[in-house]
Protein backbone atom coordinates (compact mmCIF):
# COMPACT_ATOMS: atom_id res chain seq x y z
CA UNK A 1 0.00 0.00 0.00
CA UNK A 2 0.96 3.59 -0.61
CA UNK A 3 2.86 5.19 2.25
CA UNK A 4 1.97 8.59 3.72
CA UNK A 5 4.67 11.08 2.84
CA UNK A 6 6.68 13.31 5.19
CA UNK A 7 7.92 16.40 3.37
CA UNK A 8 10.27 18.97 4.87
CA UNK A 9 9.70 22.38 3.33
CA UNK A 10 12.52 24.77 2.62
CA UNK A 11 11.52 28.41 2.17
CA UNK A 12 14.26 29.91 0.02
CA UNK A 13 15.22 33.58 -0.02
CA UNK A 14 18.12 34.60 -2.26
CA UNK A 15 19.78 31.20 -2.00
CA UNK A 16 19.28 30.65 1.75
CA UNK A 17 16.77 28.58 3.70
CA UNK A 18 14.57 30.80 5.87
CA UNK A 19 11.51 30.38 8.08
CA UNK A 20 8.86 33.06 8.50
CA UNK A 21 6.00 33.32 10.93
CA UNK A 22 2.62 34.02 9.34
CA UNK A 23 4.43 34.81 6.12
CA UNK A 24 6.45 37.57 7.80
CA UNK A 25 9.36 37.99 10.21
CA UNK A 26 11.86 35.87 8.31
CA UNK A 27 14.79 34.05 10.00
CA UNK A 28 17.83 32.37 8.42
CA UNK A 29 17.85 28.55 8.70
CA UNK A 30 20.82 27.44 6.61
CA UNK A 31 22.32 26.43 3.27
CA UNK A 32 19.80 24.67 0.97
CA UNK A 33 22.16 21.92 -0.19
CA UNK A 34 23.23 21.04 3.34
CA UNK A 35 19.67 21.10 4.63
CA UNK A 36 18.43 18.98 1.70
CA UNK A 37 21.21 16.43 2.17
CA UNK A 38 20.41 16.16 5.87
CA UNK A 39 16.70 15.48 5.22
CA UNK A 40 17.48 12.96 2.50
CA UNK A 41 19.67 11.06 4.97
CA UNK A 42 16.90 11.21 7.59
CA UNK A 43 14.45 9.53 5.21
CA UNK A 44 12.41 12.47 3.89
CA UNK A 45 10.04 11.23 1.18
CA UNK A 46 10.20 14.42 -0.87
CA UNK A 47 11.41 17.97 -0.51
CA UNK A 48 9.54 21.17 -1.28
CA UNK A 49 11.35 24.41 -2.08
CA UNK A 50 9.35 27.60 -2.00
CA UNK A 51 11.16 30.61 -3.38
CA UNK A 52 10.01 33.60 -1.36
CA UNK A 53 12.47 36.01 -2.93
CA UNK A 54 10.53 39.11 -3.85
CA UNK A 55 12.70 40.26 -6.74
CA UNK A 56 12.54 38.70 -10.20
CA UNK A 57 16.23 39.62 -10.61
CA UNK A 58 17.13 36.87 -8.17
CA UNK A 59 15.61 34.07 -10.31
CA UNK A 60 18.99 32.79 -11.54
CA UNK A 61 19.98 32.27 -7.89
CA UNK A 62 16.96 29.97 -7.49
CA UNK A 63 17.89 27.92 -10.57
CA UNK A 64 21.43 27.51 -9.23
CA UNK A 65 20.06 26.38 -5.89
CA UNK A 66 17.70 23.86 -7.52
CA UNK A 67 20.50 22.50 -9.69
CA UNK A 68 22.85 22.18 -6.72
CA UNK A 69 20.24 20.33 -4.65
CA UNK A 70 19.09 18.08 -7.51
CA UNK A 71 22.70 16.95 -7.99
CA UNK A 72 22.87 15.79 -4.38
CA UNK A 73 19.59 14.07 -3.68
CA UNK A 74 17.62 11.29 -5.32
CA UNK A 75 14.14 11.88 -3.98
CA UNK A 76 11.44 14.02 -5.63
CA UNK A 77 11.88 17.76 -5.46
CA UNK A 78 9.03 20.26 -5.83
CA UNK A 79 9.84 23.91 -6.47
CA UNK A 80 7.41 26.81 -6.22
CA UNK A 81 7.32 30.58 -5.91
CA UNK A 82 6.91 33.06 -8.75
CA UNK A 83 5.96 30.46 -11.38
CA UNK A 84 4.00 32.51 -13.94
CA UNK A 85 4.12 30.76 -17.31
CA UNK A 86 5.22 27.63 -19.16
CA UNK A 87 8.71 29.05 -19.66
CA UNK A 88 9.08 29.22 -15.84
CA UNK A 89 7.84 25.62 -15.52
CA UNK A 90 10.26 24.44 -18.16
CA UNK A 91 13.20 26.33 -16.61
CA UNK A 92 12.57 24.78 -13.20
CA UNK A 93 12.13 21.26 -14.59
CA UNK A 94 15.35 21.67 -16.56
CA UNK A 95 17.15 22.86 -13.45
CA UNK A 96 16.21 19.54 -11.85
CA UNK A 97 12.81 20.02 -10.21
CA UNK A 98 10.46 17.05 -10.50
CA UNK A 99 7.33 19.04 -9.81
CA UNK A 100 6.50 22.71 -9.97
CA UNK A 101 4.13 24.45 -7.61
CA UNK A 102 1.89 27.20 -9.00
CA UNK A 103 0.03 29.64 -6.78
CA UNK A 104 -0.85 33.22 -7.83
CA UNK A 105 -0.61 32.49 -11.55
CA UNK A 106 -3.19 29.71 -11.20
CA UNK A 107 -5.65 32.20 -9.70
CA UNK A 108 -4.89 34.85 -12.32
CA UNK A 109 -5.19 32.38 -15.18
CA UNK A 110 -6.50 28.88 -14.42
CA UNK A 111 -5.93 27.88 -18.08
CA UNK A 112 -2.20 28.15 -17.43
CA UNK A 113 -2.55 25.08 -15.18
CA UNK A 114 -4.23 23.16 -18.02
CA UNK A 115 -1.59 24.23 -20.49
CA UNK A 116 1.30 23.31 -18.18
CA UNK A 117 -0.35 19.98 -17.36
CA UNK A 118 -0.85 19.10 -21.01
CA UNK A 119 2.67 20.06 -21.92
CA UNK A 120 4.62 18.58 -19.01
CA UNK A 121 2.19 16.04 -17.56
CA UNK A 122 -0.24 16.69 -14.69
CA UNK A 123 1.97 14.67 -12.36
CA UNK A 124 4.45 17.54 -12.20
CA UNK A 125 1.90 20.31 -11.68
CA UNK A 126 1.17 21.10 -8.04
CA UNK A 127 -1.22 23.93 -7.25
CA UNK A 128 -0.55 25.69 -3.94
CA UNK A 129 -3.61 27.03 -2.16
CA UNK A 130 -3.17 29.51 0.68
CA UNK A 131 -6.47 29.67 2.55
CA UNK A 132 -7.73 31.77 5.41
CA UNK A 133 -10.85 31.12 7.48
CA UNK A 134 -13.29 33.96 6.80
CA UNK A 135 -16.46 32.70 8.51
CA UNK A 136 -17.44 34.22 11.83
CA UNK A 137 -17.87 32.13 14.97
CA UNK A 138 -21.05 30.03 14.92
CA UNK A 139 -21.24 30.39 11.12
CA UNK A 140 -20.69 27.39 8.88
CA UNK A 141 -16.94 27.25 8.20
CA UNK A 142 -15.78 29.06 5.08
CA UNK A 143 -12.27 29.65 3.76
CA UNK A 144 -11.05 32.12 1.18
CA UNK A 145 -8.06 31.78 -1.15
CA UNK A 146 -5.30 34.37 -0.74
CA UNK A 147 -2.34 35.09 -2.99
CA UNK A 148 0.86 37.13 -2.80
CA UNK A 149 2.15 35.36 0.28
CA UNK A 150 -1.18 35.66 2.05
CA UNK A 151 -1.61 39.40 1.55
CA UNK A 152 -4.16 39.55 -1.24
CA UNK A 153 -7.72 38.25 -0.95
CA UNK A 154 -9.14 36.69 -4.12
CA UNK A 155 -12.82 36.30 -3.25
CA UNK A 156 -12.54 32.60 -4.17
CA UNK A 157 -14.02 29.97 -1.90
CA UNK A 158 -11.18 27.57 -1.11
CA UNK A 159 -13.17 24.34 -1.52
CA UNK A 160 -14.77 25.41 -4.77
CA UNK A 161 -11.40 26.60 -6.05
CA UNK A 162 -9.75 23.30 -5.17
CA UNK A 163 -12.39 21.39 -7.16
CA UNK A 164 -12.08 23.71 -10.16
CA UNK A 165 -8.34 23.73 -10.37
CA UNK A 166 -8.13 19.93 -10.14
CA UNK A 167 -10.54 19.79 -13.06
CA UNK A 168 -8.20 22.15 -14.88
CA UNK A 169 -5.37 19.67 -14.43
CA UNK A 170 -3.66 20.12 -11.06
CA UNK A 171 -2.00 16.78 -10.22
CA UNK A 172 -1.64 17.53 -6.53
CA UNK A 173 -2.63 20.29 -4.07
CA UNK A 174 -0.38 21.93 -1.50
CA UNK A 175 -2.78 23.38 1.04
CA UNK A 176 -1.54 25.97 3.53
CA UNK A 177 -3.63 27.46 6.31
CA UNK A 178 -2.54 31.08 6.60
CA UNK A 179 -4.11 31.27 10.06
CA UNK A 180 -1.95 28.41 11.31
CA UNK A 181 1.30 28.91 9.43
CA UNK A 182 4.16 29.41 11.89
CA UNK A 183 1.92 29.14 14.97
CA UNK A 184 2.85 25.55 15.91
CA UNK A 185 -0.80 25.06 16.85
CA UNK A 186 -1.45 22.24 14.35
CA UNK A 187 -3.03 22.13 10.89
CA UNK A 188 -6.48 23.56 10.26
CA UNK A 189 -7.96 20.05 10.24
CA UNK A 190 -11.42 21.12 9.21
CA UNK A 191 -10.09 22.91 6.14
CA UNK A 192 -7.81 20.00 5.33
CA UNK A 193 -10.59 17.41 5.59
CA UNK A 194 -12.96 19.51 3.48
CA UNK A 195 -10.46 19.93 0.65
CA UNK A 196 -9.14 16.38 0.82
CA UNK A 197 -12.70 15.03 0.53
CA UNK A 198 -13.53 17.42 -2.31
CA UNK A 199 -10.81 16.33 -4.75
CA UNK A 200 -9.54 13.14 -6.35
CA UNK A 201 -5.83 14.07 -6.33
CA UNK A 202 -3.36 13.91 -3.41
CA UNK A 203 -3.36 16.75 -0.88
CA UNK A 204 -0.28 17.91 1.03
CA UNK A 205 -1.09 19.56 4.37
CA UNK A 206 0.88 22.63 5.38
CA UNK A 207 0.89 25.34 8.01
CA UNK A 208 1.04 25.04 11.75
CA UNK A 209 2.96 21.92 12.72
CA UNK A 210 4.45 22.18 16.23
CA UNK A 211 4.72 18.52 17.24
CA UNK A 212 4.44 14.98 15.88
CA UNK A 213 0.86 14.56 17.03
CA UNK A 214 -0.02 17.33 14.55
CA UNK A 215 1.41 15.27 11.70
CA UNK A 216 -0.66 12.30 12.84
CA UNK A 217 -3.83 14.40 13.00
CA UNK A 218 -3.21 15.79 9.53
CA UNK A 219 -2.87 12.32 8.01
CA UNK A 220 -5.82 10.80 9.86
CA UNK A 221 -8.45 13.37 10.93
CA UNK A 222 -7.42 15.73 8.15
CA UNK A 223 -7.27 12.98 5.51
CA UNK A 224 -4.05 14.34 3.96
CA UNK A 225 -1.88 12.16 1.72
CA UNK A 226 1.29 13.92 2.76
CA UNK A 227 2.34 16.31 5.52
CA UNK A 228 4.67 19.21 5.07
CA UNK A 229 6.56 20.85 7.90
CA UNK A 230 9.42 23.27 8.22
CA UNK A 231 10.35 24.62 11.63
CA UNK A 232 10.06 21.38 13.64
CA UNK A 233 12.70 19.90 11.34
CA UNK A 234 14.85 23.01 10.79
CA UNK A 235 15.10 23.74 14.48
CA UNK A 236 16.04 20.13 15.17
CA UNK A 237 13.06 19.57 17.46
CA UNK A 238 12.49 16.27 15.63
CA UNK A 239 14.21 14.42 12.82
CA UNK A 240 12.21 13.04 9.91
CA UNK A 241 13.14 9.58 11.21
CA UNK A 242 11.63 10.33 14.61
CA UNK A 243 8.47 11.60 12.95
CA UNK A 244 8.19 8.35 10.97
CA UNK A 245 8.78 6.17 14.03
CA UNK A 246 6.07 8.07 15.88
CA UNK A 247 3.60 7.68 13.01
CA UNK A 248 4.42 4.03 12.43
CA UNK A 249 3.88 3.27 16.12
CA UNK A 250 0.40 4.79 15.78
CA UNK A 251 -0.41 2.59 12.79
CA UNK A 252 0.28 5.01 9.93
CA UNK A 253 2.05 3.40 6.97
CA UNK A 254 5.30 5.25 6.26
CA UNK A 255 8.35 4.36 4.20
CA UNK A 256 11.00 2.89 6.49
Amino acid at each position, binding site marked *: *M*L*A*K*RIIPCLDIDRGRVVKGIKFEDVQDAGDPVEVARKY*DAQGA*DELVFLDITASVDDRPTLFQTVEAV*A*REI*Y*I*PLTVGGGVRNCADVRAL*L*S*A*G*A*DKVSINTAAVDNPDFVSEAG*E*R*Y*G*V*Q*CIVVAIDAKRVSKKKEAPRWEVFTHGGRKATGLDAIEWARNIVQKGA*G*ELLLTSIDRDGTKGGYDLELLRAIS*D*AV*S*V*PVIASGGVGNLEHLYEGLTTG*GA*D*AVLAASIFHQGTYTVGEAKQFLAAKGVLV*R*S
Partner: protein
Amino acid sequence: MAAIGIIDYGMGNLHSLGKALERVAGNGRVVISYDPEELLKCDRLVLPGVGGVRECMKELQRLELNQLVVEAARSKPMLGICLGMQVMLEWSDENGGVPALGLFPGRVSRFPDPPEDGSPNRLKVPHMGWNRVRQVRPHPMWQGVPDNAWFYFVHSYHAVPSNPEHVLGVTDYVHEFASAIARDNIVAFQFHPEKSQNHGMTLLANFTQWDPA
Protein backbone atom coordinates in the same frame (compact mmCIF):
# COMPACT_ATOMS: atom_id res chain seq x y z
CA MET B 1 34.12 2.72 -23.32
CA ALA B 2 30.59 1.48 -22.65
CA ALA B 3 27.86 4.00 -23.29
CA ILE B 4 24.31 4.22 -21.95
CA GLY B 5 21.92 6.09 -24.22
CA ILE B 6 18.91 7.92 -22.80
CA ILE B 7 16.32 8.31 -25.54
CA ASP B 8 15.29 11.97 -25.50
CA TYR B 9 12.05 12.50 -27.38
CA GLY B 10 11.41 15.89 -25.81
CA MET B 11 9.06 14.93 -23.00
CA GLY B 12 9.94 15.22 -19.38
CA ASN B 13 12.96 15.98 -17.36
CA LEU B 14 15.94 13.75 -18.12
CA HIS B 15 18.24 15.71 -15.87
CA SER B 16 17.79 13.59 -12.74
CA LEU B 17 17.85 10.32 -14.68
CA GLY B 18 21.04 11.38 -16.46
CA LYS B 19 22.91 12.32 -13.32
CA ALA B 20 21.67 9.23 -11.47
CA LEU B 21 22.99 6.98 -14.27
CA GLU B 22 26.25 8.92 -14.37
CA ARG B 23 26.67 8.29 -10.67
CA VAL B 24 26.28 4.51 -10.99
CA ALA B 25 27.84 3.98 -14.44
CA GLY B 26 31.45 3.96 -13.25
CA ASN B 27 33.56 4.48 -16.37
CA GLY B 28 30.48 4.31 -18.60
CA ARG B 29 29.43 7.35 -20.59
CA VAL B 30 25.84 8.63 -20.45
CA VAL B 31 24.47 10.00 -23.72
CA ILE B 32 21.18 11.92 -23.87
CA SER B 33 20.10 12.10 -27.49
CA TYR B 34 17.25 12.03 -30.03
CA ASP B 35 19.58 11.10 -32.87
CA PRO B 36 18.95 7.45 -33.89
CA GLU B 37 22.51 7.05 -35.16
CA GLU B 38 24.01 8.32 -31.95
CA LEU B 39 21.73 6.07 -29.91
CA LEU B 40 22.46 2.96 -31.99
CA LYS B 41 26.12 3.35 -31.07
CA CYS B 42 25.26 2.98 -27.38
CA ASP B 43 25.64 -0.39 -25.66
CA ARG B 44 22.42 -0.09 -23.70
CA LEU B 45 19.39 2.16 -23.93
CA VAL B 46 16.94 3.75 -21.52
CA LEU B 47 13.46 4.79 -22.60
CA PRO B 48 12.16 7.28 -20.02
CA GLY B 49 8.94 9.24 -20.16
CA VAL B 50 6.35 11.37 -18.48
CA GLY B 51 3.19 12.89 -19.90
CA GLY B 52 0.54 11.42 -22.18
CA VAL B 53 0.96 8.35 -24.38
CA ARG B 54 -0.43 9.90 -27.59
CA GLU B 55 2.09 12.72 -27.52
CA CYS B 56 4.83 10.25 -26.60
CA MET B 57 4.10 7.91 -29.54
CA LYS B 58 3.74 10.90 -31.88
CA GLU B 59 7.14 12.27 -30.90
CA LEU B 60 8.82 8.85 -31.10
CA GLN B 61 7.43 8.46 -34.63
CA ARG B 62 8.30 12.01 -35.69
CA LEU B 63 11.91 11.54 -34.58
CA GLU B 64 11.98 8.04 -36.12
CA LEU B 65 12.80 6.61 -32.72
CA ASN B 66 10.01 4.04 -32.56
CA GLN B 67 11.77 1.79 -35.08
CA LEU B 68 15.05 2.29 -33.27
CA VAL B 69 13.53 1.15 -29.98
CA VAL B 70 11.94 -1.91 -31.54
CA GLU B 71 15.14 -2.88 -33.35
CA ALA B 72 17.49 -2.16 -30.44
CA ALA B 73 15.19 -4.16 -28.16
CA ARG B 74 16.16 -7.29 -30.10
CA SER B 75 19.77 -7.13 -28.97
CA LYS B 76 20.74 -4.36 -26.55
CA PRO B 77 19.87 -4.27 -22.86
CA MET B 78 16.94 -1.89 -22.63
CA LEU B 79 15.27 -0.20 -19.68
CA GLY B 80 11.81 1.43 -19.76
CA ILE B 81 10.75 3.81 -17.00
CA CYS B 82 7.21 5.01 -16.21
CA LEU B 83 5.60 6.07 -19.52
CA GLY B 84 8.63 4.49 -21.19
CA MET B 85 7.41 1.18 -19.73
CA GLN B 86 3.80 1.76 -20.75
CA VAL B 87 4.64 2.39 -24.42
CA MET B 88 6.35 -1.01 -24.47
CA LEU B 89 2.94 -2.69 -24.28
CA GLU B 90 0.74 -3.15 -27.37
CA TRP B 91 -1.99 -0.68 -26.55
CA SER B 92 -2.78 2.07 -24.03
CA ASP B 93 -6.28 3.15 -23.03
CA GLU B 94 -4.97 6.67 -22.33
CA ASN B 95 -5.98 9.60 -24.58
CA GLY B 96 -8.90 7.63 -26.02
CA GLY B 97 -6.77 4.61 -26.95
CA VAL B 98 -3.36 4.57 -28.63
CA PRO B 99 -1.45 1.71 -30.26
CA ALA B 100 2.04 1.44 -28.73
CA LEU B 101 5.34 -0.34 -29.46
CA GLY B 102 4.22 -3.87 -28.63
CA LEU B 103 7.43 -5.17 -27.10
CA PHE B 104 5.27 -6.91 -24.49
CA PRO B 105 1.85 -8.41 -25.25
CA GLY B 106 -0.84 -6.67 -23.22
CA ARG B 107 -2.37 -3.28 -22.61
CA VAL B 108 -2.24 -0.25 -20.33
CA SER B 109 -5.33 0.62 -18.23
CA ARG B 110 -6.32 3.41 -15.88
CA PHE B 111 -6.83 3.04 -12.15
CA PRO B 112 -10.53 3.51 -11.33
CA ASP B 113 -11.37 7.04 -10.19
CA PRO B 114 -12.06 7.31 -6.46
CA PRO B 115 -15.74 7.59 -5.48
CA GLU B 116 -16.84 11.22 -5.11
CA ASP B 117 -18.49 10.65 -1.75
CA GLY B 118 -15.42 11.72 0.20
CA SER B 119 -15.33 8.36 1.94
CA PRO B 120 -12.27 8.00 4.16
CA ASN B 121 -9.38 5.88 2.87
CA ARG B 122 -10.51 6.13 -0.75
CA LEU B 123 -7.55 5.79 -3.07
CA LYS B 124 -6.67 8.81 -5.11
CA VAL B 125 -5.51 8.95 -8.72
CA PRO B 126 -2.68 9.61 -9.64
CA HIS B 127 -1.01 6.94 -7.55
CA MET B 128 1.65 9.27 -6.21
CA GLY B 129 4.29 8.50 -3.62
CA TRP B 130 6.24 5.58 -2.17
CA ASN B 131 4.94 2.06 -2.47
CA ARG B 132 6.42 -1.42 -2.20
CA VAL B 133 7.44 -3.77 -4.98
CA ARG B 134 7.06 -7.49 -4.33
CA GLN B 135 9.52 -9.50 -6.40
CA VAL B 136 7.60 -12.34 -8.04
CA ARG B 137 10.52 -13.93 -9.88
CA PRO B 138 14.30 -13.81 -9.66
CA HIS B 139 16.16 -11.50 -12.02
CA PRO B 140 19.66 -9.95 -12.08
CA MET B 141 17.94 -6.56 -11.62
CA TRP B 142 16.94 -7.47 -8.08
CA GLN B 143 20.47 -8.13 -6.93
CA GLY B 144 21.01 -6.20 -3.68
CA VAL B 145 17.40 -4.99 -3.59
CA PRO B 146 15.36 -6.39 -0.69
CA ASP B 147 11.95 -7.87 -1.44
CA ASN B 148 9.11 -5.38 -0.75
CA ALA B 149 11.48 -2.41 -1.03
CA TRP B 150 9.97 1.07 -1.38
CA PHE B 151 10.00 2.91 -4.70
CA TYR B 152 8.61 6.24 -5.88
CA PHE B 153 5.57 6.14 -8.19
CA VAL B 154 3.65 8.84 -10.08
CA HIS B 155 1.07 7.53 -12.55
CA SER B 156 -2.61 7.13 -13.33
CA TYR B 157 -2.26 4.24 -15.81
CA HIS B 158 -0.58 0.87 -15.33
CA ALA B 159 0.55 -2.02 -17.52
CA VAL B 160 -1.49 -5.21 -17.80
CA PRO B 161 0.87 -7.65 -19.53
CA SER B 162 -1.00 -10.64 -20.93
CA ASN B 163 1.86 -13.07 -20.34
CA PRO B 164 2.24 -13.61 -16.56
CA GLU B 165 5.80 -14.81 -17.14
CA HIS B 166 6.75 -11.24 -18.05
CA VAL B 167 5.82 -9.94 -14.61
CA LEU B 168 8.89 -9.33 -12.46
CA GLY B 169 7.37 -7.39 -9.58
CA VAL B 170 3.94 -6.31 -8.36
CA THR B 171 2.59 -3.44 -6.29
CA ASP B 172 -0.67 -3.06 -4.41
CA TYR B 173 -2.79 0.01 -5.17
CA VAL B 174 -6.56 -0.33 -5.59
CA HIS B 175 -5.58 -3.79 -6.85
CA GLU B 176 -2.31 -5.57 -7.47
CA PHE B 177 -0.63 -4.41 -10.67
CA ALA B 178 2.58 -5.19 -12.56
CA SER B 179 5.15 -2.58 -11.47
CA ALA B 180 8.16 -4.34 -13.04
CA ILE B 181 8.21 -6.42 -16.23
CA ALA B 182 10.96 -8.15 -18.17
CA ARG B 183 11.65 -10.44 -21.08
CA ASP B 184 14.93 -11.38 -22.81
CA ASN B 185 17.07 -8.22 -22.76
CA ILE B 186 14.26 -5.79 -21.83
CA VAL B 187 13.30 -4.68 -18.34
CA ALA B 188 10.83 -1.95 -17.40
CA PHE B 189 9.65 -0.26 -14.22
CA GLN B 190 6.52 1.76 -13.57
CA PHE B 191 8.24 3.54 -10.66
CA HIS B 192 11.13 5.99 -10.93
CA PRO B 193 14.42 4.39 -9.83
CA GLU B 194 16.14 7.78 -10.26
CA LYS B 195 13.84 9.19 -7.57
CA SER B 196 13.90 6.18 -5.27
CA GLN B 197 17.01 6.85 -3.23
CA ASN B 198 19.32 3.90 -2.46
CA HIS B 199 17.24 1.03 -3.85
CA GLY B 200 16.65 2.98 -7.04
CA MET B 201 20.38 3.57 -7.41
CA THR B 202 21.00 -0.16 -6.93
CA LEU B 203 18.56 -0.99 -9.74
CA LEU B 204 20.19 1.50 -12.10
CA ALA B 205 23.63 0.15 -11.19
CA ASN B 206 22.37 -3.39 -11.89
CA PHE B 207 21.12 -2.27 -15.29
CA THR B 208 24.51 -0.82 -16.22
CA GLN B 209 26.07 -4.22 -15.38
CA TRP B 210 23.36 -6.43 -16.83
CA ASP B 211 24.43 -8.98 -19.42
CA PRO B 212 21.25 -10.68 -20.65
CA ALA B 213 23.06 -12.93 -23.16
